[in-house]
């Protein structure tokens, strides 16, 4: 039960920028994610959260260290590790149905099977009526729900989510957070969820990983021992949120990173 599903060991990543200088994006990250765990990674913009997730998905190579999925190194993307992207990622020329069933289609399932899967997962995200719609006919929140349905329809063992609700308004965001927890009750999956909303992390996670500004290191890992459904008015909830905010604040107050903070204000106030 407690063998890690996903395990990062001393992971480093640097990029070669255009003018020959190297950018250290991820610095010595080690993390074990166990079965059915919900991990949230919070950190300031540009601290390497997306980069780490992309490495875990096998989309990006590591500069140093290793990432293991059930004791095998992750070298290329694989069906067991799903991902929901920070950016818009639906295929705009396909209907919602055919977007959701892309995974089964790639796996060679028949049309009937694919449609059944699409129906099931669209119902799961409450979009049963939109199977024949095109992505551009949907709102931002609906699109992200389709993206989540698409990832789940491939039945991943681990789901990596990169700020899936980042572009949504506060109300829709809270709604989808609740929905995600509901979905997880029915479809047990291990989730690694990146956000820069501290409130979001505390609401969702079993453990919150707090990162430092670039180069991203893990500052602390905090367990959230508040029973679900969590109440935002709960003093323990508020205390934990405040503590994490405080941590991020002392980090970003450093003059070297002041500029980054300016360009992408924390959404934690939400």
């Amino acid at each position, binding site marked *: 039960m407690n063998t890690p599903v996903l395990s990062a060991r001393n992971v480093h990543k640097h990029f070669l920028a255009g003018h020959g200088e190297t950018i250290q994006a991820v610095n010595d990250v080690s993390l074990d994610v166990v079965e059915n765990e919900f991990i949230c990674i919070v950190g300031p913009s540009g601290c390497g959260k997306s980069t780490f997730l992309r490495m875990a*998905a096998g989309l990006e190579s590591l500069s140093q260290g290793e990432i293991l999925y059930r004791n095998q190194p992750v070298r290329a993307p694989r069906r067991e590790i799903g991902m929901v992207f920070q950016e818009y*990622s639906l295929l705009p*020329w396909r209907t919602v149905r055919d977007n959701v069933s892309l995974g089964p289609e790639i796996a060679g399932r028949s049309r009937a099977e694919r449609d059944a899967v699409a129906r099931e997962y669209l119902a799961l995200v409450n979009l049963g009526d939109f199977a024949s719609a095109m992505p551009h006919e949907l709102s931002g929140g609906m699109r992200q729900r389709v993206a989540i349905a698409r990832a789940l329809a491939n039945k991943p063992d681990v789901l990596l989510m990169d700020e899936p609700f980042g572009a949504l308004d506060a109300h829709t965001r809270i709604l989808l957070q609740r929905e995600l927890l509901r979905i997880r009750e029915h479809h047990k999956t291990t989730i690694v969820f990146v956000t820069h909303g501290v409130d979001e992390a505390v609401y969702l996670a079993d453990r919150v990983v707090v990162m430092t500004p670039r180069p991203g290191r893990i500052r602390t890992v905090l367990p959230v021992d508040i029973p679900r459904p969590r109440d935002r008015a709960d003093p323990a909830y508020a205390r934990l949120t405040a503590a994490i905010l405080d941590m991020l604040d002392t980090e970003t107050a450093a003059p070297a990173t002041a500029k980054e903070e300016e360009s992408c204000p924390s959404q934690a106030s939400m």
Partner: protein
Amino acid sequence: MQHKLLSLCLPLLAPCLFFLFWEYAATAIDNELILPPLEQIIALLAHPGENLISMGTLAGNIGISMVRVLSGYALAVMIGVPLGVAMGYYGGLFRLLNAFLGMFRPIPPLAWVPLVLAWFGVASLATLANLPRGELYFYCNNLKLSMLFIIFIGALFPVLTSSVHGVRTVNRTLIDSARVLGATEKDIFLKILLPAASPSIVNGLRIGLGVAWMCLVSAEMLPGSLSGVGYLITHAYTVGRTDVVIAGMISISAVGALLDFGFQWIEKRKYAWKQLSR
């Protein structure tokens, strides 16, 4: 209602004024060589099957021109699309060929004429295939290699460039989202790259066909050409038939617009998502 009628009439206003002015100028000048009256042209266009000053019929010449353009164009598409997609997909191939092809891109198709004549002369598909004299020979002899080359080179670059561009600008996230679902290279190529690039490719096909059609006159001015709208125009000019020249020009315009319209229709119907998705 009134508003609708007005907006329907508005596009017709400029042509009507133009034709009125033409009529007026033609009467004022009173010289068929400079500007024949409108009726004369309309009469020519109304009887496309009529034999014109021993140059064949208008319809026949348009038909021959279309076969030429479509042959040269088909060649450009068969080479341009696969090469463009491959160059868009494989960075190495792109770096290998892009600068090289860029050297030829700015050369107007017409500037190739002397060189093309030196290379191909009056060789045609018929002589190339060594066909026996006969009906097939007659038709294929109309497809001069030099003409095909001019049309080919004119259509190639728009087709190639749009294909390269279409593939290179495919959103990386779409590719990544298929890869995390377990897509193979082949899946990515067929299910992501091609559909994502196809609006751009089709746009290139459309522009390429337009350019191919525009290269027509220059191609049909080449020696050995005894037919086609371009030939009709240049020959009619030498015998002082300005009315035939203008009728030929109008036919070129009409056919070109028709071909373009077909592509526009496809783009509207199949690629609406491109405009609608942000």
